[in-house]
């Protein structure tokens, strides 16, 4: 029962690789992609590469796809799993997802093999935004949050914006996306828990220096509540605007069900916003953490 629609005898609603786009006017879609590779990058993370129909490649950094993951254990995985896109290669027609094999959805995803079909829906949500006035941005991420921030470096490079990337992880081996940031010309500062360089005090000192050096026109973060709090505090103190990509348990992905809401504070008032529709990228100053 994994995929009602593509298992149907008649229906041709999801778009497939190599077939004409039957819904060219729609900003998003449901796509049956071909798995190209799905390799371990370390003991916890895998990198999935997909061949997709062209419309899926309109994804922007920070947007997500809703993935119909195979079962890891024989029992049904009922809902899709939202995952931000790691790399968009329009020329090759490929999308990549970098993910940590943790829950049932990602454990099922880890079983995909080259040649398999994989149903993804999207691109959904609002991605990162680069203001033309920004020349230097600071990207601060931790763990799997770095996979979300990596395509921002791609977008910054395309727009001639310089990136300083502070990459945080439990240990040096688990620093994700370093190659991608290096390749795109970012200044990379890797910090980890093992040598305590990832402590908030140290990261705060790094950020303070970047602000003082005029290297921080805007902040971007994902993957850690304490790093979000830090960027919110420093951003407020120094007038640095910021964006954060957030997660929530999600059902429809399109804004209909109101399952993925989070609390935000706008002009002193607490409001709920849908991560799938008003996000997943939000103004750092409006967040209330999680």
């Amino acid at each position, binding site marked *: 029962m994994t995929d009602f629609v593509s298992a149907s005898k008649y229906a041709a609603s999801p778009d497939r690789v190599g077939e004409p786009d039957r819904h060219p006017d729609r900003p998003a879609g449901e796509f049956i992609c071909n798995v190209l590779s799905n390799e371990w990058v370390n003991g916890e993370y895998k990198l999935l590469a997909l061949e997709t129909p062209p419309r899926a490649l309109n994804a922007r950094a920070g947007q997500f796809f809703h993935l119909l993951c195979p079962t890891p254990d024989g029992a049904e995985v009922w809902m899709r799993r939202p995952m931000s896109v790691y790399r968009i290669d329009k020329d090759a027609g490929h999308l990549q997802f970098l993910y940590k094999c943790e829950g*049932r959805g990602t454990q099922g995803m880890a079983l995909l093999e080259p040649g398999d079909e994989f149903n993804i*829906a999207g691109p959904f949500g609002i991605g990162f935004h680069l203001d033309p006035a920004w020349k230097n941005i600071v990207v601060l991420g931790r763990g799997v949050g770095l996979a979300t921030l990596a395509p921002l470096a791609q977008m910054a490079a395309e727009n001639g914006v310089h990136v300083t990337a502070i990459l945080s992880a439990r240990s040096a081996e688990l620093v994700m996306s370093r190659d991608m940031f290096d390749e795109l010309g970012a200044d990379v500062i890797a910090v980890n828990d093992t040598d305590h360089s990832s402590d908030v005090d140290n990261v705060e000192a790094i950020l303070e220096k970047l602000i003082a050096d005029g290297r921080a026109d805007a902040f971007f973060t994902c993957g850690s509540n304490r790093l979000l709090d830090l960027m919110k505090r420093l951003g407020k103190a120094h007038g640095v605007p910021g964006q954060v990509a957030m997660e929530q348990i999600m059902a429809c992905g399109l804004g209909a*069900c109101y399952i993925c809401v989070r609390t935000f504070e706008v002009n002193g008032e607490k409001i709920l916003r849908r991560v799938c529709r008003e996000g997943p990228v939000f103004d750092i100053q409006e967040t209330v953490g999680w």
Partner: protein
Amino acid sequence: MVDLSVKIGDVEMANPVTPASGAFSWEYADVIDLNRLGGLVAKTICKEPRLGNPTPRMAETEAGIIQSIGLPGKGIEYFIDHIVPEYKKFTPPLIVSVSSESTEEFAELARDLSIPGVDVIECNISCPTRNTTGGNFAMQSEHTKEVVSAIRAATDKPLWAKLSPNAGDIVSIAMAAEEAGADCLVIANTFLSLKIRTDNFRPALGNKFGGLVSPALKPIVLRMVYQVAKQVSIPVIGIGGVTKAEDVVEYMLAGASAVGIGYAGFRNPTALTAIIDDLEAWCDDRGIKKVTELIGAIKDDDMEMDTLTAASSGV
């Protein structure tokens, strides 16, 4: 090619496939052509703005998801000014779902929503996480009759009543709603459910209880649709576990004139239009000229056991 059109009372629909309230919004136009749907069913609206329930609002179980959203919304004024116009960009009839904790306010809502552009008022008298007198009127016949009568008196629009699968005897509740003037019965809302986390002994949902949404509901709700359709003369819409065209056929054979789809649209955002395509092909393959031929066409006249009586009397 088969004629898929159906009529729910005076409401004409291009086909029997509609979304279920709460599982759909105009935002699905990002992915599918909404003009292809039988109807557009808006998320239940309440009079005043509501934030809804605490998160998590959804949890997976072995046999589907449980969810408790709590009817968040910006209230009726915002709905009329901003949401109705979003739906009116599309052609299918607009079914507006309303809910309230009081009979008087329910009637007031129906009256205030009886405006051009709204084609049907669906009264959600069966929100599973509310109590009998607090919005879940459909647990008991007398409450159902009272609230539906009040709403009926407040609007000339077609009135659909959404019933609860959690009631002991849904047939008497359906009859009460018909007697009170409902034009159609929508069967059913979600099943009241609970999931407890074994790692911290806490309920998995922020609101403790939730409604079960699953293909597993189909045989149960199908039975309810069958029982009710035998006893009422107004149309019935079946909602519960529809994931493919054959499920639509099954509900129609049981006596439904149309179906509502929730979960399948979460799982496959293109499910609704895919199911319409499939239903058309299914009928064409079998030489069925009008989809309405299927309504109540179950062949069970030769079966001896009167399961209708058995189930109604609690055997």
